[in-house]
């Protein structure tokens, strides 16, 4: 059952899960951003594996879009973190929460 496709997808799944765990357990915003990067990368991996499974270019195209998005996201995200850090003097995401349900 372990074919190249399933192996690649499994790897993507593992990486994705690891990213997920990280984002769940971290309070530092930078770490959360990094975790998002891990997860995005894992998703990209899944696309690439799928592209190679079908021999179609769409998967890789999608990876490129993810890449572009990740770049934009990181730049905006880092700017936001910078602001946050300037205002709160901390990187704790829970500190940033002003909502009380």
């Amino acid at each position: 059952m372990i074919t190249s496709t399933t192996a690649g997808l499994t790897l993507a799944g593992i990486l994705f899960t690891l990213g997920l765990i990280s984002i769940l357990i971290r309070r530092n915003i930078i770490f959360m951003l990094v975790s998002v990067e891990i997860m995005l990368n894992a998703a990209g991996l899944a696309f690439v594996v799928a592209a190679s499974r079908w021999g179609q270019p769409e998967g890789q195209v999608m990876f490129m879009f993810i890449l572009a998005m990740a770049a934009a996201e990181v730049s905006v995200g880092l700017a936001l973190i910078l602001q946050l850090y300037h205002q709160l003097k901390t990187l704790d995401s829970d500190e940033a929460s002003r909502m009380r349900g």
Partner: protein
Amino acid sequence: MQWIYLIPALPFLGALILVLFSRAIGKTGVSLIGCGSVGIAALITLIAGGQFIGGGWQQFTLPLWNWLSIGDFNIGITLHLDALSLAFTFVITFVGFLIHLYSTGYMADDPDYARFFACMNLFVGSMLMLVLADNLLLLYLGWEGVGLCSYLLIGFWYKDPANGAAARKAFIVTRVGDTAMAIALFLLVQHTGSLQLSTILARATQLWAQGDPTVTLIAFLLLGGAVGKSAQLPLQTWLPDAMAGPTPVSALIHAATMVTAGVYLIARTNILFILAPAAQATVAIVGAVTLILAGCSAFVQTDIKRVLAYSTISQIGYMFLALGVGAWSAAVFHFITHAFFKALLFMGAGAVIVALHHEQDMFRMGGLRKSLPGVFWVFLTGAASLVAIPFISAGFYSKDQIVWLAWSSANGNIGYWLVAIIGAFITAMYTFRMVFLVFFGEEKTHVHHPPGRSMMIPLYILAVCSTFAGFIELPHTLGHITMLSDLLRPVLPSVPLQFESTGLEWVSQGVAALLSFLGIYIIWRSLYIPFPVGLKEFWKNGWGFDMAYDRIFVRPFVLLARWNRRDMVDKLYTGLAGLTRSFHRAMSATQSGVLRWYIMGIVMGAVLILSVIIWRQYVV
């Protein structure tokens, strides 16, 4: 005869004028209209009665207008005059007029003079409607109308909450009986398709055999209405409390007229009761039991008006006994004489009460024979009639007819006779206990203002009536005059007798008279009969009926009402709203702003969805 509609219309008109223009016409005007309307009605009744009897009419029906007409169900505002309603109309207007006249003196100082006469006039009008009604629905209108007036007049002095309570009690208790009567009306509509008395009575004999369950049920329900209005067992409790009203009210409503409406109802629907022997026997038993119970209670009262109230219950018990044994005209006869002498007694008591500045306790009276001789003599006449002193009192003739027929009629038996005789004995005791307490002995309270002329004239007239009214119907043993029963024959069937014996009738009358005298003698010897105190208290409180009803009905109802004031059903909806709100709170609690919880939610959702997919696609 076409203008008999004026008989009820005049009092109604009087009431309307008194309500609307009482300020404009002044006190004299109020007296004039209040008494005048009833007086003219009495006059018209006399003329109409003369024409009716002289013209040999059996009945006269006057349709005024159509009340309800739905398909085949027609009810008109229609007046119906026959011998029975004529007798009642006469008593109502005549005694009513005298009591109105008396009231002008009795109520002279009351600030609500006009309201009093308005209610009294309304009462007379409703009562006349009751007895002149051609159908049961119109009768019911009068029936409830008199109930309303009774309520208004018992609670006339509204400032005291006790009076209000007594008034409400009277209305509500009679209303319980009325409800039974209403159901009887529904049954009659269902089975005969009509409420017109002549139609019902004509159709009843075709529809039902003797003892048919339906007609028995109807008769029982009508009896329920009758016992409510006539203060018979088990709905008698309201009448003693009703004495909270002004004395003329007690005389008119709670002695002479309204409380006998039950008698009228049963006499009017006699055919139904004849068809239902069980119900008729119950009427007799109710009457018999009531007359003894009320007599005992009357014996131990201290309030003069309460004595008379229990006495009234007891006397109506006699009438019910008469109805129960089928002595229809005897009941009507006793109604007439009772109306005279009991109104007389009440108004005499009222004169005493006013003279003593609203003192009602008999033990604080005494020795009034000298200071109020006129009142004493008329009161004595009334008492004699109530006790049925032989030959010279009207009560003798009417009561002894009942006593005798309780035994000799086809439905009667010696047991009824015994009860009636014992009742006569008790009557003598309590009546003369009252007379002796009030008029003999030492004077305990000083007389303030002796009654004026307007109060005394009606008393004299009634004294004459309660002496001589008995001569319209004399027993076999004494001349055998049957004016009243002849008049009533077309309406009320004559009594079927199980035996006829002049000798035994003599014995019956003799025993009754002897027992009466014996009772007077005993009470003359000693005013205090050594009964156990507990028994006296028990009797005084009306055999515990009030307490029992209070425990069984009133308190649970009030408790239930108080307990559920906020309406439990609403809890259902507020509960639903509360549930929604708490759900909403739970949901908004998740909107906490803690980012990781949101992600956690996403993950949980993902796990859940994937589980479902796996479950649906691969496992099952």
